[in-house]
């Protein structure tokens, strides 16, 4: 019997102890009319060998296309040690570290994780991670509304350059609490700071800015941060942690820095894996930490004065505050955060910088190669990190289909999310893409667009 260790003699001895004849008798409190005769429609069991063959066939069926798509999930190299260690049974099959004395491993890892994220983003404190970047953004908005006691606004000003997926998830999660997202328009690939003249920062609990923004451009973070603070709005900075190896972190934006930062942690050693599991990070200034949702680990001492780690500030959470908790979240992405901590430890600041620099160089090379083709131009001139928007002289979908049938994921078609950009494609070349890969893309593209002049 797979995964059930009982022998026949165990079963009869146990039933005898219970004074029942049959296991079925143990279900006698279920009303007879509700009992079923089994799960019709579920197939027979597969052996480990059989399921292995099946899964390998399915996996191979999907192939391994060359990936030039980013748009929130990035194809980075993950060192072998990362998941080899993260999936050790002691990490993999442990529960939430509520029994601190028996969970020091997980707790210390999370404390190290919190330290790394706080430092990368230039803010004071971090939680133990949230589901993904989009839900972290929604939680950041909720947190900002709770934390901004100055204007008690229930509106968040969100630049349209912020990831559409983040905006959609936030809309869904904020709807019930009547918190409104107000969009700030795009101009030349960045947030339109002139549009701020028609708005008052005092009307918003927070202003949310992504940098590099969804379109890859470096956004007007200093101007927007200072504008928000001038009216008493908080600033939510959204950032790819890989970019923070190079770029000024949210905690240093403008004169005072962002108050809250969040983002998608996937680039830190997490495989793309069809969208998850990833992890969202959420960091903030010390003075608003009690508005933070999710688990937080703190360092303290044991009764002998020895340092140790424990979950702390738990009175914010659902298992204690119930209907008045900061969020219903109880999970963090513990295992994924563990992998990310190992990844960041292996890479160090210099390793991350080198990966980030290579991504920047590769995307520049890709953009140069593609814009050399007739009918392909850069959509705007703003400097970019590792993603850029190209404009085509024809619909993007057809071009992507041709690339796809040649084993290339050519990028993310922006026409549904950003109709104002026309035939626009978001491309990305991480450190994984070689010069040969880039030439392969350019080669097929040149067949589509006609050879370069």
């Amino acid at each position: 019997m797979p995964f059930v260790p009982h022998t026949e003699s165990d079963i009869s001895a146990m039933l005898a102890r219970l004074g029942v004849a049959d296991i079925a008798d143990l279900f006698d409190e279920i009303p007879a009319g509700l009992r079923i005769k089994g799960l019709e429609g579920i197939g027979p069991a597969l052996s480990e060998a059989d399921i292995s063959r099946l899964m390998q066939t399915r996996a191979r069926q999907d192939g391994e296309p060359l990936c030039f798509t980013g748009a929130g999930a990035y194809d980075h190299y993950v060192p072998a040690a990362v998941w080899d260690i993260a999936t050790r049974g002691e990490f993999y099959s442990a529960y939430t570290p509520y029994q601190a004395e028996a969970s020091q491993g997980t707790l210390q890892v999370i404390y190290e994780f919190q330290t790394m994220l706080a430092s990368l983003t230039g803010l004071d404190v971090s939680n133990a991670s949230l589901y993904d970047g989009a839900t972290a953004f929604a939680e950041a908005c909720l947190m900002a509304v709770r934390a901004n006691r100055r204007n008690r606004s229930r509106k968040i000003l969100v630049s349209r350059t912020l990831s559409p997926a983040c905006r959609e998830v936030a809309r869904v999660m904020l709807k019930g609490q009547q918190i409104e997202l107000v969009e700030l328009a795009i101009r030349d690939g960045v947030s339109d700071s002139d549009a701020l003249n028609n708005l008052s920062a005092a009307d918003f609990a927070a202003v949310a800015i992504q940098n590099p923004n969804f379109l890859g451009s470096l956004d007007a973070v200093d101007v927007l941060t200072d504008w928000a603070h001038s009216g008493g709005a908080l600033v939510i900075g959204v950032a790819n942690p890989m970019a923070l190896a190079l770029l000024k972190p949210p905690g240093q934006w403008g004169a005072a820095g962002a108050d809250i930062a969040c983002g998608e942690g996937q680039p830190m050693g997490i495989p793309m894996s069809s969208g998850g599991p990833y992890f969202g990070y959420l960091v903030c200034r010390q003075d608003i930490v009690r508005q933070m949702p999710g688990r937080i680990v703190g360092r303290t001492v044991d009764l002998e004065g020895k340092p140790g780690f424990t979950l702390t500030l738990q009175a914010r959470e659902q298992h204690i505050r119930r209907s008045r908790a900061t969020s219903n979240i109880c999970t963090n992405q513990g295992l994924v955060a563990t992998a990310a901590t190992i990844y960041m430890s292996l890479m160090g600041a210099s390793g991350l910088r080198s990966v980030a620099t290579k991504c920047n160089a590769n995307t520049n090379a890709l953009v140069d190669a593609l814009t050399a083709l007739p009918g392909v131009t850069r959509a705007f001139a703003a400097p970019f990190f590792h993603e850029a928007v190209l404009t085509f002289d024809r619909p993007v979908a057809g071009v992507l289909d041709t690339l796809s049938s040649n084993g290339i994921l050519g990028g993310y078609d922006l026409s549904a999310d950003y109709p104002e950009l026309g035939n626009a494609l978001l491309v990305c070349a991480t450190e994984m893409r070689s010069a040969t890969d880039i030439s392969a893309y350019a080669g097929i593209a040149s067949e589509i667009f006609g050879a370069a002049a």
Partner: protein
Amino acid sequence: MSEVPDSCMYTKDHEWLRLEDDGSVTIGVTDHAQEALGELVFVETPEAGAAFGVGDACAVVESVKAASDIYCPVAGEVTEANAALVDKPELVNSSPYDDGWVFRLRPENAKAIDELMDAEAYNRFLAELED
């Protein structure tokens, strides 16, 4: 037995309220409440100028394992919060009726105070809870 001074009025949520000479009221949590919560680690106080109605959650007292809202016993505007609790939340444990006061309020209607329990009634209420 927990301490229940005669100088205060009480609510079923274990808040106490004391009328001051200037017509304002001081509000805190009772000895019984602090004992049930255990050592406090944080008190969230309302800001001066904030207005609350009766029963509005206006402050939070937090121990390691529990958090409890303080519900405003009478409607009014907050005039002052106890700044000492920021660094020393444990004052609520050591001195619930004096140094551990939570905030002061200018009541909209001073008569509303009379509707709360006096010390004798609160003692009876506590005795019922014990049963």
